[in-house]
């Protein structure tokens, strides 16, 4: 090869790199394991130092949860073709286009919205972009965000919005845990571009007053952005049903393993009209005919002024590599589950969560502060009256092979000595009973 290109050494190919820029020593990296079996042994050895939610009983949630992942989901997202394709055209990557169009379509049914994006990175980005879309749609530069969102989302929003958008956090009612509508009213004026809240909320509460919230927001000329957990939409009304303009959320619950918080995808959906679509930074795949009758082709619903690839720095944010494989996976999940499966899983989760709330709430000293409200899969547990800290309780539970709920004391100190417990369809009655029994033991 060198001979063919007329070079006598490889070094000649790097002639343009000046000496002063060179590294004049080998990289200081460990000795490699060039044989596959040796590499496997090495990595296995490190992974052996992990304990997982498969061999322990976990009640952790807070943005990532252990849901049922059908084997066929893993089968499809292991296919080498899907795994190693990238951004080819609608011909040589036709299958990828169709799979993502079908994902968009299934999410459209779940959300009852006709426009769904090719996913962005995660639910945080979806919320942040949803709020920037609200600002672009209205020309205003203030947004109101529910205070009951993860502290990490608050951090993300500040980082992403602060250059030109002011974020105000709206309190929730201490007694009910629901969004304080009076506080919302106090801040709603003509400077507000959009309002974001999550349903179910970060604390697991289901808010049935969506239409009322939407009414107030629209009266002020603002955009309603609602973050949802897609696995709840078999039993809960989608935001479109109560007047949301933009729906966002994370795909993790739809057939994606937790992967230590790395298995995420962000969806954004809205009405299908030019006014909204022009504000999406994402790719938007659409159906198209081909030169042969009856053939399905796909392409991008494109605006000249929309994505960063076309307009560079005038961009409505940017688009790039994000979560396409998880879109395909979520599509597989929804197709496997179907309407009945989504209804059953939602129903099963709510029943198990309520059962857990009742069992745990019955423990002396333990309180479920929002027990009167409807919950989906998560609920707050107040250990204040037990005299023990959440950290302490979790340490004791860990020793018994149980991962207790997320410690909220740092994040939401106004709630007191509380933790966020998450129950999914993967928990059995025995699991929940064991939690209750062990908690009672630990607290005794």
């Amino acid at each position, binding site marked *: 090869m060198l001979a063919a*290109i007329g070079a006598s050494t*490889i070094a000649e190919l*790097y002639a*343009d790199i*000046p000496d002063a820029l*060179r590294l004049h020593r080998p990289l200081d*990296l*460990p000795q*490699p394991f060039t044989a596959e079996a040796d*590499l496997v042994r090495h*990595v296995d050895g*490190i*992974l*052996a130092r992990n304990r997982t939610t498969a061999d322990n009983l*976990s009640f*952790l949630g807070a943005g990532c949860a252990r849901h049922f992942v059908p084997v066929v989901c893993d089968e499809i997202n292991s296919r080498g*073709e899907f*795994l*190693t394709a990238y951004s*080819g055209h609608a*011909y040589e*990557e036709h*299958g990828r286009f*169709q799979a993502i169009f*079908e994902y*968009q*379509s299934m999410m459209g049914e779940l959300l009852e919205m006709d426009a769904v994006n090719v996913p962005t990175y*995660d639910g945080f980005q979806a919320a942040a972009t949803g709020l*920037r879309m609200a600002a672009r749609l209205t020309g205003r530069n203030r947004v109101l965000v529910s205070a009951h969102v993860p502290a990490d989302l608050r951090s993300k929003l500040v*980082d992403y919005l602060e250059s030109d958008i002011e974020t105000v956090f709206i309190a929730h009612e201490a007694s009910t845990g629901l969004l304080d509508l009076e506080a919302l009213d106090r801040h709603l004026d003509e400077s507000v571009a959009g309002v974001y809240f999550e349903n179910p909320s970060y604390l697991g509460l289901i*808010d049935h007053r969506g239409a009322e919230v939407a009414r107030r927001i629209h009266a002020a000329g603002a955009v309603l952005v609602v973050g949802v957990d897609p696995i709840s939409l*078999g039993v809960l*009304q989608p935001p479109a049903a109560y007047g949301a303009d933009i729906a966002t959320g994370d795909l993790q619950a739809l057939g994606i393993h*937790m*992967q230590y918080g*790395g298995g995420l995808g962000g969806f954004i959906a809205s009405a299908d009209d030019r006014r909204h679509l022009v504000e999406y930074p994402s790719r938007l795949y659409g159906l198209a*005919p081909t030169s042969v009758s*009856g*053939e*399905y082709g796909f*392409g991008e619903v494109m605006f000249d002024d929309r994505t960063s*690839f076309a307009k*560079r720095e005038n*961009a409505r*944010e*940017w688009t790039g590599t*994000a979560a396409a494989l998880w879109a395909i996976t979520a599509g597989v999940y929804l197709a496997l*589950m179907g*309407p*009945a*499966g989504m*209804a*059953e899983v*939602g129903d099963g989760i709510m029943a*198990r*969560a309520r059962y857990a709330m009742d069992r745990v709430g019955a423990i002396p000293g333990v309180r*479920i502060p929002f027990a009167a409200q*409807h919950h989906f899969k998560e609920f707050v547990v107040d250990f204040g009256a037990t005299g023990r800290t959440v950290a302490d309780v*979790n340490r004791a539970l860990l020793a018994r092979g149980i991962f207790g709920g997320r410690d909220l004391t740092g994040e939401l100190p106004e709630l007191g000595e509380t933790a966020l417990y998450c129950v999914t*369809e993967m928990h059995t009655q025995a699991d929940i009973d064991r939690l209750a029994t062990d908690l009672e033991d630990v607290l005794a």
Partner: protein
Amino acid sequence: MTWPIEPKPLPRRMHQASWDEPVIFELGQPGARGVLPPALEPGIREAVGHPVAALPDTIRRPVPPKLPELSQLHVLRHYDRLAQETVGVDTGIAVGMGTCTMKYSPKVNDRFARDPRVTELHPLQDEDTVQGILEIMWRLEQFLKEISGMDRVTLQPPSGSAAIWANVSMVRAYHASRSEGSQRDQVITTLFSHPSNAAAPRVAGYDVVTIYPDADGYPDLNALRAAASGRTAALLITNPEDIGLFNPRIAEFVQVVHDVGGLAVYDQANANGILGITRAREAGFDLCHFNLHKTFSTPHAGGGPGAGASGVTAELARFLPGPTVEFDGSRYYLDHDRPDSIGKVRPFYGTTANIVRAYAWIMSLGAAGLREVAETAVLNNNYLMLRLLQIAGLTAPFAPGKRRIEQVRYSWAGLAAQTGIHTEQIASRAADFAVHYWFSHHPWVVPEPVTIEPTESYSMADLDEFAAIFAAIAEEARTNPELVRTAPHRSTIHQVDERVLDDDATWALTWRAYLRKTGGSAPDAGQGAAREDETVAGPWVAPEAGQVVAVEAG
């Protein structure tokens, strides 16, 4: 019949898989189910009844979503067929996707990524239970520190563009900390940089100045000198740029920006040809980023998940997104106590699966292996350039006779002038040989562009085959242009008519929108509309009609 069988010609007489597969909503039948979720135990039901039925009407979904209803085999078959209709690195010669670095993603690394000791970890588990994954994250950071020369590296960004955002946010925080935030309201980048180098700063509030290339293809240094000022927050630059030339004066570029008090940010998406040879540190950069799904072999996954890594000097480390992964000599832990951090760029810590893959990839190669990766990538690229430039009508603009690093931007302008066939049309014909190529970011300074990056994973035979395909299509453009103009002919589908995608009356992002706009209804074999006369009983309907199960007040 010929015997012996004739040798196979190049290009191949192949045909891409083509199943004429309906959209999934057209498949299946009412009542079919692919998988059942875990059954709810009677004990739970007895204890709590039907919390769903107790929901207020305003939030209880009356009818389940109109999803397709297929049996498991039919779901599997449908998606397997779609997979077959997708060409990836595993099946095709994917050297055409310039800047994407379409190298082999070793399957052994997928095995690690799918290990339950990675997949079944919850990010909020006690640190003592995840020492293994924390160790991998910490060690990968150390590797990337050495490869870049930077002092700290974060693995939190989910992609290259997200890493660019993190870098820009850190630049912003840096200048704010020195009370120069409002003064420094401008970022400088180059035309051949990735568009996110312009788009991300805009979101961060910056005005963007773009330096155009000079006649040799390098960013115009004099233009940079004229543009740099007390308003300059940073220079975002790539080297080598997408055309494949290494800018030997890069240190001067960095110096110009440092002289005005700005920071230099190095987009290292194009690192594959220079691993172990030159680093961000030696050129004086303050920040840099890598794409793990490009240089470090993690699979592209059809458009993500990817992973980005941002590296910074010690001076900037306090602005890194949190938490960082630390090691105290015996234990790995997450440091959340970072008051100057820009905060979160995403939930949790990063694309774990890709962090594991990249770690294993580097551990399988070591320093010598990475060097070999770079040198092979550059050798492959220069060899392929030689072969491709033998094709009449294809040129490599800028710096004639110069070596390129790991990729080249070519131009079909000569062929287009001769034949009227354009680069997009040639790309459509290339699909008939399961080959894709990328053009260029916009605007197209190089006319009729083609950007090719072989990487180290392809053999001479692969590159010869790729060149043969290009040569054949160029010849067709001259002798049979109609064939090229109406391509593809042997791909999964035929030429797409894109006009419906531009009109809001016709475009359809979802099947439901398509049916609505075309006045169609779901065919009998599907679901949804065909079932509207049936009441779909959700499982929450209490056995006794009309009974609502109350939720106990707490």
